[in-house]
C-alpha cells in the first residue's frame, strides 16, 4: 500500500471494547495521502466502532495498539483536537441540536480550526459566500443556514449536511461512517459528488459502508473487509464487486 513513513493514518494492532465487550481485535491499516479506502463488512464486524474510536467518541476503550495521524499519537488527543488536526467524522446518525443554527456551527468550527493554525477569524462575508457555494453543490436551500443543526431534517438532508460540513472544513482525512445508508439514488449521487469534490493528492478518505453501491460513484483505491474486529481481506475495487456477488459469507467463512 503505502510506505510506512509517509502514511497519513497508521493503525497498528488496535484492540477496543465497548462496555466491556471486545469489538476490535488487532486491526491494522495504513492510509496514505490522497488515498480513498473503503471498509466493508457484515453488521457487527466493528466498522462503526473503528470510526468512533478514531474520532474519540466517549465510551470506547482502547485496550491495545496504536493510531498515529501525521506521526502524532491520535489516541492521546481529545476529540476536538483530532478534528482540528484535520480528522473529520461523518456521522452515521447525525445529531439534531435544536437552538444552535447551522451557520453558527459551521463558523465556530472553521474558526476553531483557523485558531489552531494561528489564522485570524474568517471574514463573515467571505465565509457566507463560501458556504453558499458548497451548499449549491449539495443542493441545499438557503433557508437551511438559519435552521437548527439537523433539526427536523430528513435522513437524506442530514447526510448532505455532513458532507457540506466536510467540504467547508476541508479535512486531511474524512472518515465517513455509513454516509450512504438510507439514501435514495439521487441523494447518493449528490453525496458522492461532494466526496469526490474533496479528492486530491493531499486529502484522504475512509468510507465505512455496508454496500458497494456508494463505491460505484466514489471509486476507492483500496477495499478492506472487516470481520470480527480485524481486516480479513484487502484488495482493490474489484473486491467490492466480488463481495456483492458472493456475499459476506464468502469472507467470514474464510476468516473462521
Amino acid at each position, binding site marked *: 500500500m503505502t510506505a510506512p513513513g509517509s502514511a497519513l493514518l497508521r493503525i497498528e494492532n488496535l484492540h477496543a471494547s465497548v462496555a466491556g465487550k471486545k469489538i476490535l481485535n488487532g486491526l491494522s491499516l495504513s492510509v496514505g495521502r490522497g488515498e480513498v479506502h473503503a471498509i466493508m463488512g457484515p453488521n457487527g464486524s466493528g466498522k462503526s466502532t473503528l470510526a468512533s474510536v478514531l*474520532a*474519540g*467518541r*466517549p465510551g470506547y476503550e482502547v485496550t491495545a495498539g496504536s493510531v498515529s495521524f501525521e506521526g502524532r499519537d491520535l489516541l492521546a488527543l*481529545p*476529540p*476536538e483536537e*483530532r*478534528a*482540528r488536526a484535520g480528522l*473529520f*467524522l461523518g*456521522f452515521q446518525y*447525525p*445529531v439534531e*441540536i*435544536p*437552538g*444552535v443554527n447551522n451557520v*453558527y*456551527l459551521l463558523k*465556530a*468550527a472553521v474558526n*476553531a*480550526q483557523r485558531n*489552531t493554525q494561528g489564522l485570524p477569524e474568517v471574514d463573515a462575508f467571505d465565509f457566507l459566500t463560501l458556504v453558499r457555494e458548497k451548499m449549491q453543490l449539495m443542493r441545499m436551500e438557503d433557508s437551511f443556514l438559519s435552521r*437548527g*443543526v439537523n433539526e427536523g431534517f430528513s435522513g437524506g438532508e442530514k447526510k448532505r449536511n455532513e458532507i457540506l*460540513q466536510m467540504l467547508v*472544513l476541508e479535512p486531511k482525512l474524512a472518515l465517513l461512517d455509513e454516509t450512504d445508508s438510507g439514501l435514495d439514488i439521487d441523494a447518493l449521487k449528490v453525496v458522492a459528488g461532494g466526496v469526490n469534490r474533496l479528492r486530491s493528492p493531499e486529502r484522504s478518505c475512509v468510507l465505512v459502508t455496508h454496500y458497494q453501491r456508494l463505491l460505484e460513484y466514489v471509486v476507492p483505491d483500496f477495499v478492506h473487509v472487516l470481520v470480527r474486529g480485524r481486516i480479513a481481506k484487502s484488495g482493490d475495487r474489484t473486491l467490492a464487486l466480488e463481495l456483492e456477488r458472493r456475499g459476506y459469507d464468502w469472507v467470514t467463512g474464510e476468516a473462521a
Partner: protein
Amino acid sequence: MSALTARIAQDYAAAELPDAQAAPRRTALEALATCGLPTSRDENWKYANLRALERLRFVPAAGGAAVDPAALPAPIPGFTRYVFVDGRFAPALSAAPGAAFARLQGGAAAAAVRPADGDARFALLNQAFATDGARLQLPAAAGRQRLEILFLACTDSAQGSSYPRLEVSLGPDAQLDLIERHAGAAGAAPFVNSAVDIALGRGAVLTHYRLQELPPRSTHFDTLTATLAARCGYHLHAIATGAQAARSTQLVQLAGEEAHLTTALAALGDAQQVQDAYARIEHAAPRARTEQLFRGIAAGRARVAFNGKVVVAAGAAGTDSQQSLRGLLAGAQAEIDVRPQLEIYTDDVRCSHGATAGKLDDNMLFYLLSRGLERQVALRLLKWAFLADAFARIEVPELRRQIEENLAGVLQDRALKELL
C-alpha cells in the same frame, strides 16, 4: 403572631407612613398578622429561600439614592421608559407621565389581593408598605402602546426595603407591549418585594417582558396576579438571572372564554443562587388556551425550581393546556426541581405536560467536539440552545439583543467546568 409578623408590625409602626391608617394598608397588614408569611413548610414554598427574611428591615428604603443615568440599560427604541428607584418614582430618569402612565402614591394602591390566597402573601406585604408605584391604564380599543418600567434597587436591606408596584389595566381590545425590568446598583444587597397586578379586558392583548437582573446579593420576592377576560391574550416572557435568592409567584386566572395565555420562562442559577418560581394557572371559563414553557439551568451549588400548576375548573370545557418544563443540571452540587401539576374538574379538556430534568446530551456534545469546537464553547452553545426556546419568540430586536448579551455574559463567566 410569629416573631416575623411581630417584626413586620413593629417596622410598620416605625415606618411612619403618612397614610398608615389608609384602608388598603391596614387590611393587608391585618391579613398578614393573621396568616403570616409563608414558611418552607408550606407546600408551594419549600424551594424558596425564606431565611433572608430574618435579617432585613421591612421599612421602605428612604429613597434619594443617586443613580447615574449612563449606568441604566440602553433604552429600547419605541418604548417609553419610567424609572423607579427603591420603589419610588424617579421623574428625572423618566419620560413625562402620559395618558397611559399614572403614579400610584401611598396607600392608593388598591389592587384587591385575595387574602385567602396563601400564595399571594408577599403581595400583602407589598400592599402594606409600598409608597409608590405605576398604574398603566389603557381605555377600550386603545392602539398599541409600548412602555418600559424599570425598577432599580440601590439600598441594602439593612437600611430598608424596596416595594415595586405595578398595576396594569387594559380596556377591551386595548394593546400594550410592556417591559418590566428589575435591576440595581452593582454592589448593593437589597430586599425587593414586587407586586404586579394585571387585569385584561375582553379582547385586550398584553405582551409582557419581565427581566429579573438584580445584583448578585439581592433577595427578590415577586407576586404577579393576572385576570384574563374573554378572548384576550396575555403573552409573558420572563427571564431570571439575577439575585441571590429569588422567588416569583404567578397567579393567573383565565376568567373569560377563549382567553389565551402563553408564558415562556427562563431561569439561570449558579454559585449559591436560588431561583424559585411557582405558577398557578386557573382555567375558569370554556375554550381557553394555555401554553407554558420553562427552561432552567442550575450550575455550581444553585437551586432552580419551577412548580407549574394548572387547574381546570368545572365548566371550563374545551380547555387546551400544554406545559413543557425542562431543567438542566450543570453542576454536581446543583439542584433542579421541575414539577408540572394538573387538577382537572371537567371532562372535555386537552391537557398535556412534559417535564424533564437532566444533564446535557452527550451525543450533542460529542457532535460539536468532533467539529473542532473547544469544549467550553460547545458547552456554552448547548446551554444557549437549551434556553433558546424560552426567548425565541421575543419580537423586540433591541430587547432581544440585550437579553442575549446578558445571557451570553452569564453563561460565559460562570463555572462551566463542573458540567458533565
